[in-house]
């Protein structure tokens, strides 16, 4: 067991349980408006975790994560609306579609360019997806798809209805917990060890017999699929999907959230996304200037504390300990 604590498994499970517990308790104490925002926050947490997995573990900077949210959301919505699939298969379809898109983008861009050039290419691909979806008739062009229902969760032996808002909220939390665990596992398993090694020195990794491009591609596809599944929760939750889900703003959000919480920490994007949601809620009455206030605040925090909130907390704790030991 000491081995598992070395890789931080017990700590991870404890924090995950704490967060999940808080999320589950929320509907009992908060109004439906807050619960609705919390559902969105859980989805954004997963999207930000996937972004940060690419950024901090693999060393890939993507400016185009919105593309995977977009195709995941439309894929899931179409699977429900047109194919009449139940919820879990619909999420699977979304993950598959987003994963395939990531594979296509990755094959074209990943082995050719690095760093900022790759980021710009992903931005271009995402813009292309955004513009394309807005022109397809079956997908409702600019109006998107509306009236997306919440089919039951079919577990084979039982069917769990999740039509009620609170039920579906719990479903989002459950999926969020699973995907968070997936991202943690991808980061801390041998797979993650190889990825971290690749980020630090691709050449050295290659000359240990590691297929560097293969791993980078696999990681990009995984992050794309996870983002797509998270995106697919949006349709049934908000009852509508529009091309705006693929707007570049949606790609910058996870970046900001990761930096806000601390990109160097697994939980950084989670802290960032939660704070982001709180800020959005706190400034909701400032009609028209919400974005400016939130954006400005975020920018100030990110600029003032480069290590993010978790980085700041870490330094503060160290300072206090040093004071004490004096």
């Amino acid at each position: 067991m000491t081995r598992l604590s070395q890789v931080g498994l017990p700590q991870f499970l404890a924090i995950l349980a704490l967060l999940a517990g808080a999320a589950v308790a929320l509907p009992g104490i908060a109004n439906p408006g807050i619960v609705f925002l919390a559902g969105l926050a859980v989805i954004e947490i997963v999207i930000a975790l996937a972004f940060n997995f690419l950024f901090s573990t693999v060393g890939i900077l993507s400016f185009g994560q919105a593309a995977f949210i977009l195709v995941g959301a439309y894929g899931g919505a179409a699977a429900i609306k047109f194919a009449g699939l139940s919820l879990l298969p619909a999420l699977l379809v979304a993950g598959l579609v987003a994963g395939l898109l990531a594979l296509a983008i990755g094959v074209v861009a990943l082995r050719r360019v690095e760093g900022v050039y790759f980021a710009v290419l992903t931005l271009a691909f995402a813009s292309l997806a955004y513009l394309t979806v807005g022109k397809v008739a079956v997908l409702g062009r600019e109006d998107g798809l509306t009236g997306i229902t919440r089919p039951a969760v079919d577990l084979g032996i039982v069917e769990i209805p999740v039509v009620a808002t609170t039920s579906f909220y719990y479903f989002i939390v459950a999926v969020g917990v699973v995907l968070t665990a997936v991202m943690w596992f991808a980061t801390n398993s041998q797979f993650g060890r190889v990825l971290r090694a690749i980020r630090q020195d691709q050449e050295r990794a290659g000359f240990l017999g590691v297929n560097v491009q293969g791993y980078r591609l696999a990681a990009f596809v995984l992050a794309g699929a996870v983002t797509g599944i998270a995106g697919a929760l949006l349709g049934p939750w908000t009852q509508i999907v529009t091309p705006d889900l693929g707007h570049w703003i949606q790609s910058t959000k996870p970046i900001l959230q990761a930096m806000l919480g601390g990109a160097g920490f697994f939980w950084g994007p989670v802290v960032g996304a939660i704070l982001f949601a709180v800020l959005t809620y706190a400034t909701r009455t400032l009609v028209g200037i919400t974005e400016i206030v939130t954006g400005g605040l975020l920018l100030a925090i990110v600029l003032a504390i480069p290590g993010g909130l978790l980085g700041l907390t870490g330094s503060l704790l160290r300072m206090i300990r040093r004071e004490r030991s004096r």
Partner: protein
Amino acid sequence: MSDILLRGTSLKKDYGRITVLKGVDIDVAEGEAHVVIGPNGAGKTTLFKVLSGEVFPTSGTVSFDGRDVTRLAGWQRTRHGVGRTFQMARIFKELSAFENLVVALEAKKRQGTSALELLRLVPAASIRDEARRILAEFSLEHVSAWPAGSLSHGDKKTLELAMVLAARPRLLMLDEPTAGMSPADRQRSVELIAGLMKGGGLSLLLTEHDMQVVFGLATRITVLNYGEIIATGSPEEVRSNPRVREVYLGHDVSAA
């Protein structure tokens, strides 16, 4: 002569309009310690890159163990048994020395077993033991937990060598293994490498500027000058070669 393990034939390498290698023929026989020497900028590192698969030659072929590997990427050649270090030691700076070895050992193990190994959270007990044993063997136990980036120059080079050896290569390619080392560290490295060769089953191709190291290790020497081989043969033959004396102006070669 024994079997040829690595063979480069008519290797040419251009970088844009600069021709760095002008048709180099080189081979490494099984069990030999072949040292490539030459002045700065002669193309030694470039030759290493072409032979190991870091870059592809403009023309010419590379074969390893009888098979054509000219178009195989570096990681694929590594899997066939080529191991190499870099002129500037390359290690995973943020990982500890121990983790560096774990990554190397796990990479080797995955080739033999299934990719399901990737799902392992904690390195297998056998891997951890092996990593500790290697660290002890190379006198690196005291820095085991340190971030590799904070190791001394000599320890970084030693760690890199240990990682490469963890993959159990048949051919070891070392680009200036003692560059920038103190005389004491340098002596230890030579003893270490000589010891590896005694163990058997390993062939060596290395470049080096220090003539004491060169003549301490080489069973064969090749002299590269401006991308061309001007001499190859036993240490004695090369030492007495007039062309080589001319390039080196006699100093280091005769002094050694």
